[in-house]
């Protein structure tokens, strides 16, 4: 049971911390107090400073000023090892795995179980990893390389790593962004067990339902500053959003009626051995079609095959009736297709380049003047999209690696939208994006369709799928199992099809 906050001593306190990166003041008042046995949510818009606060607790960043206390004692972490030794385990927003090492090694790096002579006991290590995965309700080979793991699986490894520390404070920066519902439930189950053993949990998420489901108290940040901390039952979702954004906000954008035109994208019998088979559908001008289904159903893989990143083993794709050369992303781009990938950090951004360069990257042909790319044109384009996506940044020339997680997502979105595609494929368009901008992204997708662009959207968020789609195609284990009209669809009908529990 949660300990009563009034008389218990906090296990971790951060008070009036500040942190600047050059001219960027990431945190102006970082304040948070964690108690044993309590799950504490930290919410705020993209770029509010949540991850920076986490990194201060983790010993990655030293605060410029402010106090950090563990069990009432002032501490100054010199590095992540210090924080770990103080009993703080952290799941970072971006997975930080060693691709060449095995899953088990990733979990136990530097703390591997040893036998006589301080030699690593691989068998014990692998079975300890398996045991943690069992607690999480998944089966993952501990002896496989981390290279090639999906974002969701990487996240699972990160969670296992944090759990293996048996820490007194567990900090989780958007751990659920890529997980399925069941895994989220499992994770919350594990979290509440940890709480009952006296651990404190700090949980960051943009999905407010999760916050209300799993946490007892919530701290809200805005523009790097502490706004308020309250017991969760004192607040409504609306209160939280208002405090986060500083104004009232509609969370859902109402879809405008669409008028689909001719077929632009036609997929026929598309297959990739072992992944998906015999996928056929059409998308019309001005239509938004969703690919729904569970994580792992093959939705992203279908998108990647259409765009030519992966080879299809059978089938064809036509654009405006003209066959598209498969397995050739350049041909797909020339035909007017744009793909916003799921794994944006690895597949969508050049981390070391500036925001302006990244936004312009997919539109170089259009920006080119006499063989050169004028920086001014790039800048104009980037400025425009930064404004439309409410990007939080210091200068357009800053490298994207300095942006917050959600703002990086926005840059990828901007990069492909700036291309003026005729067919837009978006994979999880609002993952990691805050509630305020989510509605903005929805409005933009709606705008695009009313301009006659065909949109194929992949999303695991059912409200988004139901609210935005003209038609919903449901994939299950690599097969197209249902097509549901946008207005006929309900959560139940989509989930039934996705899990294979239809009556028919």
């Amino acid at each position, binding site marked *: 049971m949660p300990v009563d906050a009034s008389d218990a001593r906090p296990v971790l306190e951060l008070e009036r911390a500040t942190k600047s990166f050059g001219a960027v003041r990431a945190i102006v008042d970082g304040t948070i107090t964690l108690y044993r046995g309590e799950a504490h949510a930290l919410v705020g818009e993209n770029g509010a400073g949540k991850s920076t606060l986490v990194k201060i607790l*983790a010993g*990655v960043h030293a605060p410029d000023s402010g106090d950090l206390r563990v069990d009432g004692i002032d501490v100054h972490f010199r*590095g*992540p*090892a*210090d924080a*770990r030794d103080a009993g703080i385990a952290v799941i*970072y927003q971006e997975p*930080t*795995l*060693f*691709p*060449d*090492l*095995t899953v088990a*090694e990733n979990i136990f*790096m*530097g703390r*591997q179980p*040893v036998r006589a002579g*301080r*030699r*690593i006991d691989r068998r014990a290590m692998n079975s300890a990893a398996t045991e943690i*995965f069992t607690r999480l*309700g*998944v*089966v*993952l*080979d501990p*002896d*496989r*390389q981390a*290279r*090639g*793991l*999906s974002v*969701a*699986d990487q996240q*699972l490894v990160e969670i296992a790593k944090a759990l293996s520390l048996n820490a007194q404070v567990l900090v989780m920066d958007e751990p659920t962004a890529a997980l*399925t*519902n*069941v*895994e989220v*439930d*499992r994770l919350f189950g594990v979290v509440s067990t940890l709480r009952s053993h006296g651990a404190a949990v700090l949980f960051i998420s943009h999905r407010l339902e999760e916050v209300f489901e799993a946490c007892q108290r919530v701290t809200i940040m805005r523009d790097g500053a502490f706004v308020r901390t309250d017991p969760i039952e004192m607040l409504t979702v609306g209160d939280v959003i208002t405090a986060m954004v500083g104004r009232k906000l509609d969370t859902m954008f109402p879809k405008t009626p669409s008028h689909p035109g001719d077929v632009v994208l036609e997929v026929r019998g598309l297959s990739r051995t*072992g*992944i998906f088979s015999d996928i056929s559908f059409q998308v019309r001008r001005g239509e938004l079609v969703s690919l729904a289904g*569970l*994580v*792992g159903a093959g939705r992203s893989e279908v998108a990647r095959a259409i765009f030519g990143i992966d080879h299809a083993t059978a089938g064809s794709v036509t654009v405006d009736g003209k066959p598209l050369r498969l397995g050739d992303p350049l041909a797909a781009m020339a035909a007017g297709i744009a793909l916003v990938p799921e794994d944006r950090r690895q597949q969508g951004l050049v981390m070391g380049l500036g925001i302006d360069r990244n936004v312009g990257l997919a539109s170089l042909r259009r920006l080119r003047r006499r063989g050169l790319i004028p920086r001014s044109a790039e800048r104009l384009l980037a400025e425009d999209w930064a404004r439309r996506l409410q990007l939080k940044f210091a200068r357009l020339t800053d490298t994207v690696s300095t942006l917050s997680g959600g703002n990086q997502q926005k840059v990828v979105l901007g990069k492909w939208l700036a291309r003026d595609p005729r067919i837009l494929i978006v994979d999880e368009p609002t993952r990691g994006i805050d509630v305020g901008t989510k509605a903005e992204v929805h409005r933009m997708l709606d705008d695009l369709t009313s301009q006659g662009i065909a949109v194929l959207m992949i999303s695991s968020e059912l409200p988004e799928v139901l609210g935005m789609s003209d038609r919903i195609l449901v994939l299950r*284990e690599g097969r197209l199992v249902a097509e549901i009209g946008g207005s006929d669809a309900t959560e139940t009908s989509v*989930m*039934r099809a*996705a*899990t294979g*529990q239809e009556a028919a």
Partner: protein
Amino acid sequence: MTATLSPPRQGHTRFARAGFLMRVRELGIVLAIVLVFVAATSVNPAFARLDSVQQLLIGASIIALMGVGETMVILTRNYDLSIGSILGLSAYVIGMTFRAHPGTPIVLGFLIGIALGAAIGAINGWITTALRVPSLVVTLAMLYVIRGVDGVIVNGSIIGSDVVPRSFQAVGFATLFGIPWMAIIVVVVVAVAAYSLRSFRWARDLYAIGSSPEAADLAGIPAGRRVFTAFVVSGALAGLAGALFLALYAQIDVNGGTGYEFLVIAAVVVGGVAIFGGSGTVAGAALGAFLLNTINQALVATRISAFWNQAIAGALLLAAIAFDQWLKSRMTTKLQLEKGALREQSSD
């Protein structure tokens, strides 16, 4: 809420095993060695004679020995270009000691070489980690600094077989049951290193640092200390290699060991150590050294111009890097296809 376990996708699992790639790689090198050996023997049967095979082992020994240290450095995404110079200086300093104090015990000769190499390695490691200068620059500079110092000390003189004690030279030619002592020493070093790199936490840290420096920082791995250690080991082994070099040739001049750093790096990379760190084994590196040396001597035995030797070594290096890149991208695709977590799925 009902939960079902989705069916696992079959096949592929062997690709996921971390060691699989390495084993394939090492098997490939062994195969190549056998091929070259058979081909050379069919042209010149003398190639398979005992003394010729002993030469194959001895010739590969020094490169393989330095390859152990270089592997540890490259695993961390660093490079040690100073080892050829260290070898030369170490051999010369040992030789000078024997000249000045003819009664010096031979073990002391080895220790001097190792200590000298370790000291230079410590300087390399310190500048790289404490001052954060890229190791490529640090060790390249060190290569020239040592050559310069070498030139000043040597000052035109040559250490010849008259000053190197017979018992010291014996390490270079003596055999045990037909196996050269040099090869035995190197095999022991390689075996100890191979076992250590698999079995100890500090050694796994080396792989982690090279695999993802950022993740290594977040995991609290003392990267500076580990990289420093790798340079010290690399230097020490190059110093030991200097002692073996002197024992083998019984003479050393100012050019001794020139260009060895590139031979060693070629051997290590051909042996499957990733040039950007994170993966590879010392056994592979040693096999790489043996392959390059076998090709070298096969060319001599079959009377093909020695110029081909360098061209072949270079081509092999390019082929190894290209092959590794290709294999890596294949592996990534394969691993992606491999259904990662077998997960429960629900209908809520």
